């Protein structure tokens, strides 16, 4: 068995080597490709409250600066990093002006460490906390390209600029389908800050961290920047429809969509005879939803006959609920067909999420749909492995059958000898 595995591995290795040799050489790995390199914007609160000295005996601002300096030293080369401040410039009391006070401190692009550090060093705690406008500004800074985007928001207080709800702002940004994640770090463990920051994180599929020490702050920001550098498949935005007939045709790949509460959407996939369709769907709960929920993924023919379904239900705290299905289409019988006609399979994605009346239902919940079409399986003709047997009962049965056959054979040949002799 091991030999066989090695042989297979060898063949695979050879094939892989051939593929690599034949494939057009991509841009050299070390060189960051401006179009697809991940972008990160560190968004730092420089409001007056950052003066408070409650992180390891130093002020919040000093802790943040120290953490930034260490993080800037270790930013991976492929990441394009920018820095934005909120509440850094306006000293006055006018709320209207204070709530527009957000500025890009260092533009998103290849990092010049000295320049970025100098820019951070000039900051001193000043004004208001306009989180919503800062998020909008940061999303604008990260425009362009199709790689993943990440905002790391570091703040010590809740937004002081109502009625613009930063949580709703975050959800709206995420709904634009630009693969944007907001990770939040709270320097003050009070309930209001935590609720707001965890809501922002939840709305974009990000994380919330409560920070009490400089080391924690540094490690976490470092980790988040590194995370941005990890390669990840980015889904393609699509829009499912209410009926199968006018649904978008999907090729194998990863897709994203938005679906309202208790809504369903249709997509279409072509499957040729002898191929297997595989589809997985995840629906994210990006806001406060009721405790019990579910998802249903259904494959049906164009005429509405259900072929197979995947369903899942759950309750309690969750990021996503997902299900999947596979549909192997039988090989066509007619051998003379050169290109057998593909069957159009309708995929229906529905959810049974619900939410309290106070929760906004627009934009819909994020849907991630993965579609794969592979060669069909080798069908089983028997439940057992090649119809082979296993166990002591099998041995006993075979031995007994052999014994009986031997006896019978022996008696028959004796009888024949006797008959021949008497004649």
């Amino acid at each position, binding site marked *: 068995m091991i030999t066989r595995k090695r042989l297979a591995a060898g063949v695979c290795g050879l094939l892989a080597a051939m593929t690599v040799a034949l494939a057009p050489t991509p841009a050299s790995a070390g060189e960051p490709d401006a179009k697809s390199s991940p972008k990160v914007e560190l968004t730092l609160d420089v409001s007056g409250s950052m003066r408070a000295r409650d992180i390891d005996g130093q002020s919040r601002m000093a802790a943040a600066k120290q953490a930034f300096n260490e993080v800037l030293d270790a930013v991976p080369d492929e990441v394009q990093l920018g820095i934005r401040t909120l509440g850094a410039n306006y000293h006055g009391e006018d709320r209207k002006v204070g709530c527009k006070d957000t500025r890009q401190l260092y533009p998103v692009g290849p990092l010049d460490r000295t320049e970025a550090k100098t820019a951070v060093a000039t900051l001193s705690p000043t004004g208001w906390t306009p989180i919503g406008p800062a998020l909008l500004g940061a999303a604008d800074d990260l425009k362009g390209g199709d790689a993943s985007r990440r905002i790391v928001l570091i703040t010590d207080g809740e937004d002081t600029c109502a009625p613009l709800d930063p949580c709703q702002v975050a959800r709206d940004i995420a709904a634009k389908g630009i693969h944007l994640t907001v990770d939040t770090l709270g320097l003050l463990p009070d309930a209001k800050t935590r609720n707001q920051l965890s809501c922002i994180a939840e709305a974009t599929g990000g994380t919330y*961290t409560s920070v009490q020490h400089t080391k924690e702050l540094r490690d976490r920001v470092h980790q988040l920047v590194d995370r941005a550098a990890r390669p990840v498949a980015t889904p393609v935005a699509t829009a499912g429809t209410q009926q199968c007939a006018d649904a978008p045709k999907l090729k194998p790949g990863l897709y994203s969509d938005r679906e309202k509460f208790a809504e369903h959407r249709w997509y279409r996939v072509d499957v040729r005879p002898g191929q297997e369709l595989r589809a997985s769907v995840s629906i994210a709960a990006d806001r406060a939803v009721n405790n019990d929920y579910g998802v249903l993924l259904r494959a049906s023919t164009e005429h509405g006959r259900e072929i197979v379904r995947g369903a899942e239900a759950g309750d309690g705290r969750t990021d996503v609920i997902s299900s999947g299905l596979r549909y192997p289409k039988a090989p066509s019988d007619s051998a003379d067909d050169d290109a057998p006609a593909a069957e159009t399979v309708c995929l229906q994605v529905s959810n049974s999420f619900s939410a309290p009346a106070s929760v906004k239902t627009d934009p819909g919940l994020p849907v991630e749909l993965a579609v794969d079409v592979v060669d069909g*399986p080798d069908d089983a003709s028997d439940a057992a492995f090649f119809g082979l047997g296993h166990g002591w009962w099998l041995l006993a049965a075979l031995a007994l059958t052999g014994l009986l056959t031997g006896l019978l054979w022996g008696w028959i040949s004796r009888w024949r000898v006797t008959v021949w002799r008497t004649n």
Partner: protein
Amino acid sequence: MRTLRIVTTAVLAGAALFGTAGTALAESPSASPSTGSDGAAAAPTEAGTSFRTATVIKPDQRATADASTGDYLYWVLPVDAGQRATVKAEVKLPRSARHGAATWQLDVYDGLRRRQACQYGARTRTAAPDAGSVELSCTLRTVRAWAEPWANDPLPGGYYVRLTVADLPKDDLGLPVHAEVGATVADMGGARAVDGTLGAPLVPGVSTAAPQDEESTAPEDEASAAPGKPADLIAPDGGWSSGGWSDRWLWTAAGGLLAALAGIAGYQFTRGSGRPSRVPPGA
């Protein structure tokens, strides 16, 4: 097709029988990398935060991750046909004063993101406010080589592990935790071997590389396809099994041999020993 497969399998099985003894000795040092220190060093120290970003781990590796309470941590590991995987997780809880008990949860999903049942093990566990750590475990069903499309049976492919806190006082959200996750796989032998094989293991994106090559006119397409999780990352060390071998071959062969011997014995029994007594000498 099927005949061809059986013939190939028989040949392979024969080769395997002769080859096993020779190569087992040579292979054994590399077969258990986890015991060495290099195995521990290679273990990932970060976890993914979604199905798409899940960190690939190998069986017998101990993956670690620093995270915040409330994060959803994802790993993915390959499990092949005939194997039964056991996933174990340990969470070191924050040392700072917590406000109440927290329930931690381990979920396992297959390559199609279908949730998989645990046969044994504490999948969820509630940690007291003063507990230092919490341990979770989940033993999956034995992975089958083939199943009907309507069944939820575990099939060969990537298995996602999700670790998160399912219930906690809101005040404890965001506190730092340290998580360790490891998986072991046990070979369940031919007793669980079934007929049929999948065209390809249930690994996400297994087909996307090929179609994109077909339609790519610009090199950018190649570049954008490259950052995806290469399907071959999620694979067992020796590659996926071809589904041609199980110890059922040995059982059946032994049965055949036994039947032949019993047949000869039965035939001999009817002949008695030596010449029949009634036959006159010199006949």
